[in-house]
């Protein structure tokens, strides 16, 4: 069978896209549709599961199978699909509130289990659908409707969280960089097990320019740190470099360091310490911020193991037999001729 030939339009639905004009979600949607069209896998084999929030509208706009579920639960629902249907490609679309606040438990346990799910977390550092409260990734001190005196919440660093939760694939990309987004999608797709991608997504209504330090024309030159496997981590036109010092990833002037001392990026390191250190280079998108794949390692996927046990059980015990099942606790027979004494 030849692979289907798709264009982006084949992955669009007839539903009117209802995000605010200028929302970063449009760009992400286009990137995902474009990526899937180029992948050439039958679209009926894709399932998109979302929770609640602006990002959660995503499945309605993807001409695949999908479910817009309940707040925070998408990884759990998607796990049920992945475990039962290894033939499908299951994607979770979530936001910073959905994935890290109400659904934090499901996210970390899904990553820990390494279920075959691709998790796209649109991080806009604000609650959009409920109209502008601070989120678990909002910066401390942020003034919002629910924090008129400034938020006193300390934010999560989503990449640190994912690495800490034993994720086998962790990446970060930016909504408006479609080429990079598609590269991350491709790498996530090829990864066996859970793949977590944090996507910096601009909410132009409630939190505009939150990512300006890594997206602004001027600013990104100084702050976007591209992680490229096998290459020394340098940025700012080569002026700055990242080295490991006292267990920390540290920015240093390239001119003041032996080139051999510059950290060479390797997302495949079995130990997550350096990937975690890189995630701490900045706690949010406010200074030099790594973009790319932090971690990409291979370990058994939960759902593959579940299905392996099933196959082994059938081989060892033979296919299930109901008559044997209900008599397995020992039986006795009452003879029709018996009168019970």
């Amino acid at each position, binding site marked *: 069978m030849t692979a289907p030939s798709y264009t982006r339009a084949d992955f669009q639905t007839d*539903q009117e896209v209802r995000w605010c004009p200028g929302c970063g979600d449009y760009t992400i949607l286009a990137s995902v549709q474009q990526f899937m069209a180029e992948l050439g896998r039958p679209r*009926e*084999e*894709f*399932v*998109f*599961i979302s929770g*609640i929030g602006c990002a959660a509208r995503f*499945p*309605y706009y*993807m*001409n*695949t*199978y*999908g*479910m*817009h*579920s*309940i707040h925070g*639960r998408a990884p*759990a*629902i*998607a*796990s*049920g*699909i*992945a*475990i*039962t*249907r290894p*033939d499908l490609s299951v994607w979770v679309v979530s936001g910073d509130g959905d994935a890290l606040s109400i659904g934090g*438990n*499901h996210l970390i*346990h899904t990553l820990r289990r390494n279920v075959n799910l691709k998790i796209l977390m649109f991080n806009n550092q604000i609650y959009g659908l409920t109209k502008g409260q601070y989120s678990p990734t909002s910066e401390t001190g942020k003034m919002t409707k629910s924090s008129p005196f400034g938020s006193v919440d300390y934010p999560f660093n989503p990449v640190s969280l994912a690495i800490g939760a034993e994720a086998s694939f962790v990446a970060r990309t930016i909504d408006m960089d479609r080429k990079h987004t598609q590269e991350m999608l491709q790498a996530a797709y090829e990864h066996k097990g859970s793949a977590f991608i944090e996507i910096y997504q601009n909410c132009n209504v409630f939190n505009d320019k939150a990512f300006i330090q890594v997206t602004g024309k001027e600013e990104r030159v100084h702050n976007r740190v591209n992680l490229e496997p096998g290459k020394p981590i340098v940025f700012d036109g080569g002026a700055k470099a990242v080295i490991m010092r006292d267990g920390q990833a540290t920015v240093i002037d390239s001119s003041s360091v032996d080139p051999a001392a510059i950290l060479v990026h390797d997302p495949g390191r079995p130990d997550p310490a350096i990937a975690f250190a890189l995630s701490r280079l900045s706690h949010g998108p406010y200074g030099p911020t790594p973009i790319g794949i932090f971690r990409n390692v291979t370990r058994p996927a939960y759902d593959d193991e*579940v299905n392996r*046990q*099933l196959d*082994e*059980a*059938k081989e*060892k*015990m*033979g*296919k*299930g037999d*109901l008559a044997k*099942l*209900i*008599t397995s*606790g*020992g*039986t*006795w*027979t*009452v003879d*029709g001729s*018996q*009168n*019970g*004494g």
Partner: protein
Amino acid sequence: MADEIATADPSQTETQSLDKVVIRFAGDSGDGMQVAGARFTHASALFGNDLATLPSFPAEIRAPAGTLPGVSSFQVQIADFDILTAGDAPDCLVAMNPAALMRNLQDLVQGGTLIINTDTFDERNLAKAGYQTNPLEDDSLEGFRVVRVPMDNLTKEAVKDTGVSGRSVLRSKNFFALGLLAWLFHRPTEPTIEWVGQKFSKSPEVVAANVAAFKAGYNFGFTTEATKITFEIKPAALNPGTYTNVNGNTALAWGLITAAEKAGLSLFYGTYPITPASDILHELSRHKNFGVRTFQAEDEIAGVGAAIGAAFAGHLAVTGSSGPGIALKSEGISLAFMTELPLIVINVQRGGPSTGLPTKPEQSDLLFSLYGRHGEAPIPVLAAQSPSDAFVMAIEAARIALKYMTPVLLLSDNYVANGSEPWLLPDVDDIPNIDVEFAEHPNGPNGTFLPYMRNVDTFARPWAVPGTKGLEHRIGGLEKEAITGNISYNPNNHQLMTDSRAWKVANIANDIPLMEVAGGEDAELLVLGWGSTFGTIQAAARRARFEGHKVATTHLRYLNPMPNNLGTILHSYDRILIPEMNTGQLLKIIRAEFLLDAVGLNKVAGEPFKVAEIAEKIMEMV
């Protein structure tokens, strides 16, 4: 130490025939009372008695040894006729320590047999149990037939050459007690010896010790003539066929596996461990060769979430829990209702609210099951009435969920779940198949797929599973436009969809068995029950009829929708009694739905009704 079971002529003791007897094993939770009870039950089942059991154990895994909270017990009634409950009060009580005696003596019938492990009645244990004076030395045991047995010492002596040592030695004392009871009640010994051999086959010394203790207990009774009278209970005249002894959790798990096989689907069970539902997970996780996938989720919400995913993916999806966990699943159940996916939700009720009484039975989640969801979300609710009925109702839950594309809530409780009874096994080939038809082709104009185009008979929407070419579609929690399933905020559409969903569920009333009444139409009183009170109500009604009263009974297994003939039945009796292990939940519904002045008998004491309690109320009302 005698190696063999004594077989000489037991003419020195008198054998008395009983039609039934209730026996309770009570001891510290580390004393193996559940095992002793289960083995006694098994031997009695194989012997051919009818029986019913009721275990009672503390929520603590190991409460401090010798204390009242640490007492664990197992009650079994065996009979030569068809009995319906584990009995109100024991005729024979085994007390392995002072705490067990303190806890259980009040229940023992006057003149009953009391078997006491005297070795544990030291100052320390007496104090822990709250005894000021030693009951073995005062007159507090007068009126009972007391059998004093130094079980610790006799067990030590019996197992001394078997290779077990240290603390393991006394682990066999439950088998000593079991052996003594095997003698006292003329139980066959082979099934227990065989079971020990299989169960502990990896540790030959444990097999040797348990068998030695068991035989020593038997022989102790025989040679010392521990009592002047032994008892025999002849086999019951049960319907011919093959039986097994089954508890409700196991039967329910087997029912789910059977339903999946009969539907041609794979079974998925998403859950989080909780007492008393965990044994369903344990049982299902053993049967991977049936294609059963069990998912021990991170929490209750993920359990139902994963099950919803599995349902969307085309599996027979089940989630199970007990009250507190069902509360957490509530939002998920509403999603399954809104997306109209087949899902079975099992609630093995326990004492509530909050953590409540985790190991005790109660029926207090009925209103919660019927109404405990946000929005207008009526779902079918079924209830198992006995351990073996859990098998039947699990299959029913699956049939309804799959046929009508709806979540179904199946109620059990700790009495059904952990109680056991002989089950006349069905021929599995006679169990009807459950027809499942996945959508495979577009059902709309121009090759479109309409996920909310309803079946004209059942009002079910089509089940199109991911991977099916051409049927790609999206569902979700937002209100759907009728037919297309697109998001809709249209006022008329919301009314239509709310009505459609409710009608779909209400219409199931035409697809369930009618209520059956036992006891005739000229009865003065109808006793209406639901769930695990079935056996007790039947036994109480039987007692009342024996006294010459005309009493009818009928029992609800379908609580939403209720069978079509329920109203007619209820209106044909002047007096209606509704016993429930709650404060009157079914009563409230019956009064509201049928405008009837029914009377409740309500008990929320963490224990099932006694037959006498219901019988007394019946007598009062006739």
